[in-house]
């Protein structure tokens, strides 16, 4: 069995035009960075892996998680976490509510779930933030809550869509270290889409450029 996230002979095209061709395995804890100019199909690749690709795209190939084919599964059955450049915290829920929304249903009981949320808040350096309104958090704090929400769902892989592009220089540095550290310590295979070479460098893994490689 191949551990991690395997993209097997994945080809994505639109209207007869080929966009993406990739055949890779991302090992647990590794980050595969996909780079390329806009329109090169980076987002289509992420949407395909996540299960959100518009059916007007033509696709070939399989997405496998730890040896299981998930290509035919609905997004909510895949357990592949998503992070966008916007935190997209649910505005009607508290910070704790956002985290609990992500927390896997396998953790049962009010006390156990509250404890899991509290532990995650500690891990993302936001101890005591349970009742806070997400709209009052800084950009970096919101991004950390979004990451915590995803991690609590115990994802088998992560998809990062330009996750640092909204931050200023110094915050970018901090957030990269934070995010990639957690990915490594939790051994989650990760697909990172970016146009910033510094992101790729900080991620430390392989880089696929959709402009010139297939």
């Amino acid at each position, binding site marked *: 069995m191949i551990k991690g996230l395997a993209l097997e002979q994945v*080809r*994505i*095209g639109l209207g*007869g*035009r*080929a*966009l993406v*061709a990739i055949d890779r395995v991302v090992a647990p804890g590794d980050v595969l960075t996909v780079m*390329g*100019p806009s329109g*090169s199909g980076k987002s289509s690749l992420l949407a*395909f892996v*996540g*299960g*959100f*690709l*518009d*059916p*007007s*795209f*033509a*696709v*070939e190939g399989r997405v496998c998680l730890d040896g299981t084919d998930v*290509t*035919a*599964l*609905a*997004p*909510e*059955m*895949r*357990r*592949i*976490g*998503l992070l*966008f450049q*916007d935190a*997209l*915290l*649910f*505005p*009607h829920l508290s910070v704790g509510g956002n985290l609990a*929304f*992500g927390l*896997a*249903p396998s953790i049962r009981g009010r006390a156990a779930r509250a404890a899991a949320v509290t532990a995650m808040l500690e891990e993302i350096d936001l101890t005591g933030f349970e009742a806070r*309104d*997400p*709209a*009052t958090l800084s950009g970096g704090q919101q991004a950390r809550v979004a990451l915590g*929400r*995803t991690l609590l*769902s115990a*994802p088998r892989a992560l*998809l990062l869509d330009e996750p640092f592009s909204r931050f200023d220089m110094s915050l970018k540095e901090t957030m990269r270290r934070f995010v990639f550290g957690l990915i490594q310590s939790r051994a989650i295979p990760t697909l990172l889409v970016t146009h910033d070479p510094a992101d790729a460098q900080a991620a430390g893994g392989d880089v696929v450029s*959709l*402009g*010139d*490689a*297939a």
Partner: protein
Amino acid sequence: MAGALRSLSQRPLSKAAQPAQLRTTAPWLPGRLLQSVPPLVALLLAGPVLAGLAGVVLPAFGYLPDLGGTGLSLQPLRVLLDQPGLATSAALSLAGGLVTAAVALLGVLGLLAATAGTRKLALLQQGLAPLLAVPHAAAAVGLAVLLAPSGMLMRLAALPLGFDRPPDYLFPHDPFGLALMAGLIAKEMPFLLLVAIAALPQAEPERRLRLARSLGYGRIAGFTLAVWPSVYRQIRLPVFAVIAYGTAVVDVAAILGPSAPATLAVRITGWMNDPDLSRRFIAAAGALLQLGVTAVALIVWRGIEVLAGGLSLHLAAAGTRLPHDRSLRRLVILPALIAAAALIAGLFAVMLWSFAAVWRFPDLLPDRLTLATWTRTLPAALRPLGTSLAVGAASSTVALVLVIANLEALRRRHLASLEGSDVPAYLTVALALPLIVPQIAFLFGLETGFLALGLSPSLPLLISVHLVFVIPYVALALADPWFALDPRYEQIAASLGRRPLAVLLRLRLPMLLGPLATALAVGFAVSVGQYLPSLIVGAGRLPTITTEAVALASGGDRRIIGVYAVLQAALPLLAFALAASLPALRHAGRRGMRA
């Protein structure tokens, strides 16, 4: 990149070549049950309208076995055409629709042109929104109390002009239908204005105005030539609805319109309720004529659209800039402001009347205020009030549930790209039908059908007929916010392992609580304001606050009229007030949920 992927592009990836793979890319393909909702809603709307029209055509040609009409003949149409003043009635209806729409639309254009891109517009929007809730009948009563010879305006004029008897002119019920048109304009102008304001962002007013002004155009010319065409294109359906409504309205026309002869729709209602049942053949023939009058009005309007479009192109080609339009701007906002002021002042006058003991002309205020009229009238008003409340609450709730299911089905189908646009064509037509086809043209046929089926007047029957008119407005109110919610929220929720139903209940509905509450209030207001459906389906056995208010309006006592008009206006206003405060209460302390 094209070069790098040439090897790939030589084997084109087409849908047709990969049928087996396609299934895998849309694993969230919508459930069959949910997908049956849009056709169901369309059937619910179009079914009664089309069945009702069919039920009118047959009696119009003499076929109505229950009343002894077993063969087809042109007799009903002949009798109809022999009715005195029929041409005048039809002309009044035609003019009522066209003049109302034209003046109201020009008023909206003037107000927007003078205020677009300024803070005044946002203030106006907030100020005018409650006026939308005021039922047509209450607004008409208010205008009558304001402008009648013994009304508030003449009381104000009496002292400076030195007269102490009401002057002699006919208002309401003037033979040219001016009072009727004034009433409709005052009520429809806020409606069209709010619809236009909602459509404004898509016309990019800031950028286009900045551009036009940098080319030397004044605000009014810049807005009219560069922004308005895009706004108008989006609000055509509401404009058509205003025209159709104006040509066929019964309650406002009964309160304000001419009486000798009355408008076509009022006369048809009279024939329908005539104790002489053979009059029903004339009523059916009249309903057909009404359908024709409304169709002609819409066709004429189409001609006006072409002319106005040509004029706009001509002005733009000529470079008409109207650069110094400050004083013109003050002028063009007047129609809308006068309409709003008349509506508000009329309602206040009506309320004052309901508390008045004695109020002689030309006194500006009653001698003293009393609760006597209220304590005397309220007991009898409670039952119709309860009926309105029950029918409004039930029909708006059912409509909201159906519209939610409908929009969610459309959204998921759109995600799965089974449809090119958000709304399939058959649904657009079905949603427009109840707004465009005159109520009187098909309700009569519907009632005949109910009688044939042995359905007697009942609350469920009244609720289901109200649904036909409530659903389109609830759908119009909810569609934009529904499709505007960032789809990435739902993608994140799915990636966190949440199923579509949980995402709908725990994310989408709570996040859209504000628009949902507003849509519910809109539906409630539409239901409470319905006159003809309640009159015809209720058949006198289910009086609502609106049928009672209209029936009393022709009577003499302004105090009692005042009580009913206040009650009728209070129901929807309360609903809107609740809708506005509910999200704030539910989502207190969530800054991201503030509108």
